[in-house]
């Protein structure tokens, strides 16, 4: 594949996140075969695709949770080093949120205040945690055991843990999965405010649902490759089928790469 910008070229300035020709292997099997994505400040980009398309793997690589074999990932024009990840707020899939010892919502959210060279909670952590929980209307759950909360409440706690960092780039992995309607509305509301504040959002979604109005652009993955970039597809069930001839699909794979490089700019 001939990409417009080679993967080793300097990251484009002015983008909140840029991933170029990223390849990731897990346990010896290549999951992502050179995928790209970009988001400008204040832009909301959805990553969509069926089960096993590699969308979760892609965001895990972007946030540095798993290593990538090849390609370039940059955050606000800088290589995605642990230091640069200061600007990221990551909301993983809810399954990873349980340890053997119970913890309160306050403790879980407070762990979001840590980072590169910040091994102890900085001054003002308690106030920031309260603020983050309140912004998602779960301030009253601060002292509760997270493992005993409902799915939607747990999801909001995990989002609060990302927001307590005051991120400039928010990355969410299937935040709507198994979440009650009330939590979905609260989440859409919170994301709308963040977008207005200029926060860039990359969100892995199975379906658009309550978030339809927020999405500026969608990147659709299939079997670890980008098959569509542009308007969010309305019926992903069909798009996600293997071998489906996508109505918006670019004829030339190089072009689809170009789209993901952010050369279109924000809308």
């Amino acid at each position, binding site marked *: 594949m001939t990409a417009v910008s080679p993967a080793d070229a300097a990251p484009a300035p002015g983008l909140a996140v840029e991933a170029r020709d990223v390849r990731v292997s897990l346990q010896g099997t290549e999951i992502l075969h050179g995928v790209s994505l970009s988001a400008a400040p204040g832009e909301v980009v959805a990553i969509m695709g069926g089960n096993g398309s590699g969308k979760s793997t892609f965001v895990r690589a972007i946030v540095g*949770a798993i290593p990538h074999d090849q390609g370039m990932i940059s955050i606000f024009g800088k290589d995605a080093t642990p230091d*640069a990840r200061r600007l990221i707020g990551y909301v993983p899939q809810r399954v990873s949120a349980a*340890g053997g010892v119970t*913890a309160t919502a306050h403790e879980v959210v407070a762990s979001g205040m*840590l980072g590169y060279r910040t091994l102890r909670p900085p001054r003002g952590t308690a106030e920031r945690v309260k603020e983050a929980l309140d912004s998602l209307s779960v301030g009253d759950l601060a002292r509760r055991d997270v493992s005993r909360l409902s799915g939607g409440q747990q999801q909001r706690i995990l989002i609060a843990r990302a927001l307590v960092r005051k991120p400039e780039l928010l990355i969410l992995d299937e935040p709507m999965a198994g979440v009650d309607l009330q939590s979905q509305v609260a989440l859409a509301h919170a994301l709308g405010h963040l977008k207005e504040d200029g926060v860039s959002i990359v969100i892995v979604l199975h379906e658009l649902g309550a978030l339809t109005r927020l999405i500026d652009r969608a990147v659709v993955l299939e079997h670890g490759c980008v098959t569509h970039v542009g308007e969010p597809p309305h019926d992903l069930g069909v798009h996600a089928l293997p071998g489906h001839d996508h109505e918006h699909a670019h004829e030339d794979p190089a072009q689809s790469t170009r789209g993901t490089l952010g050369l279109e700019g924000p809308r």
Partner: protein
Amino acid sequence: MSILAEPLVQRMLLVGLLVGMAAPIVGTYLVQRRMALLGDGVGHVALAGVAAGWLAGSAAGFAQRDVLAVPGAVIFAIAGAVVIERMRAKGEAADVVMAILFYGGIATGVLLIGMAGGSNANLLGYLFGSISTVTWIDVWITAGLALAIVGIGLGLKSALFAVTHDQEFARSTGLPVGALNLVVAVLAAVTITVAMRVVGVLLVSALMILPVAIAQHLTRSFSRTMYLAMGIGTVLTLAGVSITLTQNLQPGALIVVLGVVAYVATTAVTGLLRRGRPAS
């Protein structure tokens, strides 16, 4: 009260206090990571280290052949803990590795102690604890190591919680996840060699895990679980040691049995209390 004036009694109570307080700190992180059995695997490796130290001591012609036993245990335990951590990080089946360390540790220990001209009876003190033979030097070494465990385990509590609670999220924040995981592994190894003196290799895990399991019945906060477990561990070891001053019982085994009884009792009581309340 005159019994407290006995230097041996003072030494036993001091070591019991230090170990009972320090062990549950690491235990909380291990339970959090669902690696409650790590202490057993590493403990058995530490036993091979005891025997290796013994062998080195007799080869060097030291009068006291066991003078290198504890340094040997520390080195072997750290190596074992680091190996398990590496396997876990790579996503390998840590339980199989631990099982191999179990057998390998014990078997190597028995072989090495024989080569050093010792008998398996020499190993028994390490298997079941030998708190009644502690010297003042043992007390000072234990105090130094226990204070290091408390200092690091509590000082890095937030970061170690983040890493053991949700490793992927911790990585996304830029925390040095690999280094912090190694800190947990090394703390566990040091705790095991320190606690080996009190309860022995075979029961060392119990002293790390039981107080945490009891504390989990009483509080839902991670921090409070850790502090409460430290208190419970201290009470258990002091109670166990105190009882054996007048009763002819094995201190290590008694401490663990007291812990199991306390666990069963708190399970029953909290279960009854919960039944009286509507579920939340």
